[in-house]
């Protein structure tokens, strides 16, 4: 796990650009028992339909991924045997060998989906969470490729989804519950406090202490995913829903160094302009020659 540690940039570890008072999730995978209560609580509170996936054969994960009608997804990663095919008996303290992580929308400090949205349907709420206004969304889908984590999706009514309204959907961090002073349904249902809800700055403090304790207990790979050092990179400036992981992010199907696609627009535009100039000049020159 030394790769992860090396990737940490000490000055940025544990720092986030979250605005004061912002709320979010700390999902501590070392306490996750893969019970999927978060998935069920989310679907029940938000009245999301069942997905028609069937048996996948991929460990105990029959959910697959986040989507328009799945806003929490517990990933199961079996890493049972070592290189020589031996099963382990003694493990690192806390979750190991069979990793489980409850994935969710990251409610980025600078959110790709929101910046790509041409209609203003995606907004930042008074809780500093990112929410799609269903009555404004026109289903253009620009937000979909703009999310570096593959979270937001259109409900096209094909395959998984049943409503088929063609609009973009994702976790609202239970905006309606927050308005009523309740914590989000998934955090409420989590039996082991793997999912914790609170103010991002408090959660970040807690996460740093937890990572320090885990490392003392021999979990060398324990690290935060979603601060400015890892996960909240590339102009995102931090994830309001962040994680404690024990293996490199790629193992959990998370990008190690995500960045906002918008960041590429200015260089890309400049390149286009430059290319245009070059081609234009060449054309002018060649015409002149004639």
């Amino acid at each position, binding site marked *: 796990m030394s790769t992860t540690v090396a990737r940490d940039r000490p000055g940025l570890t544990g720092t986030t650009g979250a605005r004061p008072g912002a709320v979010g999730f700390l999902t501590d995978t070392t306490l996750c028992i893969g019970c999927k209560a978060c*998935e069920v609580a989310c679907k029940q509170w938000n009245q999301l339909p069942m997905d028609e996936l069937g048996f996948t054969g991929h460990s105990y994960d029959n959910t697959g991924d986040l989507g328009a009608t799945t806003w929490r997804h517990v990933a199961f990663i079996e890493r049972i045997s070592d290189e020589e095919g031996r099963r382990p008996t003694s493990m690192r303290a806390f979750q190991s060998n069979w990793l489980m992580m409850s994935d969710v929308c990251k409610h980025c400090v600078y959110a790709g989906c929101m910046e790509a949205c041409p209609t203003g349907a995606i907004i930042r709420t008074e809780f500093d969470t990112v929410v799609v206004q269903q009555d404004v969304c026109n289903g253009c889908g620009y937000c979909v490729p703009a999310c570096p984590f593959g979270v937001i999706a259109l409900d096209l009514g094909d395959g998984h989804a049943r409503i088929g309204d063609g609009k973009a959907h994702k976790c609202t961090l239970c905006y309606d519950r927050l308005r009523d002073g309740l914590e989000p349904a998934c955090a409420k249902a989590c039996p082991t406090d793997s999912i914790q809800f609170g103010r991002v700055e408090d959660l970040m403090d807690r996460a740093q202490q937890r990572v320090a304790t885990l490392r003392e207990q021999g979990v060398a790979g324990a690290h935060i995913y979603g601060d400015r050092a890892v996960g909240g990179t590339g102009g995102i400036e931090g994830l309001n829903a962040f994680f404690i992981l024990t293996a490199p992010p790629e193992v959990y199907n998370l990008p190690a160094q995500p960045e906002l696609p918008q960041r590429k627009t200015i260089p890309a535009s400049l390149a286009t302009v430059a290319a245009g100039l070059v081609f234009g000049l060449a054309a002018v020159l060649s015409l002149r020659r004639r």
Partner: protein
Amino acid sequence: MPGLGARLGRGGATTTQQSLADSDCIVIMGSNMAENHPVGFRFVLTAKTRGATVIHVDPRFSRTSALADLHVPLRAGSDLAVLGGLINYVLNSERWNSDPFFREYVTHYTNAPVIINPDFRGPEDLAGLFSGYVADERRYTTDTWQYADQQARPAAAEDQAQTAEPRPQYLGRLTAPPRLDPTLQDPHCVFQLVKRHYARYTPEMVERVSGIPRDRFVRLAETILANSGRDRTTAFCYAVAWTQHTTGTQIISACALLQLLLGNIGRPGGGILALRGHATIQGSTDIPTLYNLLPGYLPMPMATELERDRTLEEYLRRNRPLTGAWYNTPAYLISLLKAWYGDAATPENDFGYDFLPKISGDASFQAMIPMMKDGIMKGLFCMGMNPAVGGQNAVLAREGLANLDWLVVRDVYEIETAAFWYDAPEVRAGKVRPQDIKTEVFFLPAALAGEKEGSFTNTQRLVQWHDKSIDPPGDARSEAWFLYHLGRRLKELYRGDDTAKGRQIAALTWDYPTEGPLQEPVIEAIVREINGYTVADGRLVPDFSALRDDGSTACGCWIYSGIMPEEGRNRAKSRRGDERAALEWGYSWPRNVRILYNRASADPQGRPWSERKKWIWWDAAAGRWTGYDVPDLPETKPPDYQPPEGAVGLDAHPGDAPFVNMADGRGWLFAASGLRDGPLPTHYEPWETPVGNPLYPEQPRSPAAILLERPDNRYHALGDPRFPYVLTTYRLTEHHTAGGMSRFVPWLAELQPQGFAEISPELARELGIDNGDWVVISTLRGEIEARALVTERMQPLEVDGRRIHQVGIPWHFGYSGIATGGIANDLSALVEDPNSRIHEAKAFTCNLRKGRLRSGAGEERRE
């Protein structure tokens, strides 16, 4: 739970889930706690956060193993060999023999120093059997197992395999204080008998039987030893993966023996947590749905040839011990009769004793299945039960259902048991035609927990109230509504009937007030009756010490007495938590005690064993026991109390006796009575096993297991090459038991949508199976198909020089609902533990091949 009852006195978890947070080491064995008790598992994680070691001993690497520090894989069915190995290891360890704590605990609190009848012989002498074996009846007589020099012999039939649970009153009948050898040297003392019995359970032997490599076993044993003692405690958590064996009771009882030796019973962070199968299963044995118990573990009267409780006097003579808490049996029983029969219960008619039904034969659940098939049983009420999926040998169970006159199923969905006559695999395959099934099926909708008020009594004997949030939809009603109005109509139906049955029904008090438009009975009126009251003025009693045997008090369940100690105060509703015993959170029987036998949390002089592990202690100045918990002994009994000659009841116990229900107040390392298959736990193989028993080659399988072999319930011979694999069945977090509450719910169904079988990559390679392929699993009872989940979490084990493959199948699935699959119990057999009458679903043998069933039965319907 006779495994705990026979050694400790009560058939309940000795500790609480919250107390696990105080453990230094938690051994989860025979349980997949993270998956099946996810909420309680938070306390395991709290302990771990504080630095405790968590060990999971299990054939599979499950979600529990993923959170453990040590996973110890073993062959399914070898648990007792491992526990025996731990007992032997502990007794020969340097730590146990050098730290005086262990000897002090064991000498004072257990029956280690008691001298046993010198005629007793064990498996060492008798090639795997105990003395008293009656081979042609497959049972033991227990005369030679008794304490030496006692006048009383067990009644002739006390060891008959007639009833499911041994009667609590059999926990020793002493006519004189036991003869002791405090030096533990006498060859006939319990300590020496235990030591000798387990001498052959060496780490080498454990490896040969279970497949656990020696070094790993030693690490397990050393971790437990290092975390037991004056200042540290180890807890064991088990669930039905210990219960569901032909030796299940003895496996649990071996754990009790080990925990007694380690001084872990009655102390915070120690004990044995019996994780019950689902909500209020504890409650359903306390106020029982079992045919052979009355509320509060009072035995049902018998009317068999060998056991007769014809009169109240006869019942009390047979069932009331002279010493220990059960001495008050007359007060408990007569108060129950007063609660049930009211004015019809008078001293002249033995308080209506004759109205009580008497047991004339075996009516346990397992026995019902062949009785239905054979036409002996004509009708069945199924409430919260789905035997077409959950019954052992479910093929036979469905044949039984098909042969009834009538069947009532009350459930929230049309479960398999209600739909068997048109939807079962044998019907779909054309082997059975619906028009040939004569059973009249009544399907009645039931209310869910949120649609009715009431209480749950969970794992740790904790009664917690739940409110009603919403009326049930349509015709759905609560169980209380159904049973109350059914009883009311029966009383109307039998009015004026002067037969014995008519008089019995007429005598019953059945006058609960009702409320609301649905005429629901008032549940707190039932709680009032359960708590008990004085008959003359109807005043509630404070607890069971107020109950009398003269008919002046009435009480529906004596162990719950105290739950409503005064009008308007339902203690099950209280919700004030704290960091210790949380005595104001719910109500825990008996008398709100949280850690049972907590006298053992103090040393014989009444001082805490250590500051870190203090729980209750003797306050000499105040002259009473004090501390964090309710003391589990008479509160003012001094630690140095010695009983005068002829003392009875709890006065017969000295001040250092923690096990108040036992005749001698001691925890029983050696169970002189109460168990039908031996006083010391002994490893026998599962009834179906691919290997022999290296520990007792002449006696490979339990000599007292209850067999029900018949053409529709055939067994595999020992080592039958046609069925080479060990099969174990289990549950998943995503579903609930036989699926009635989960497989029909879209949000749960999608999480585990289809039945599967877990196999190791090694076995998959051998049989040419890829992940996700269809496979067929077969036994002599039936065959099912399932999808293969090939995973390294399953692994073959080296057992006595052979490579043994294990197959795992969740047993939730059936043919109804959204999530469907082959019924795992179509494979299992009716073969039982003689004590608990529980079947063996955790270890039997099977064959497995790639492919599908021709009939397509078990195929998922959704395409």
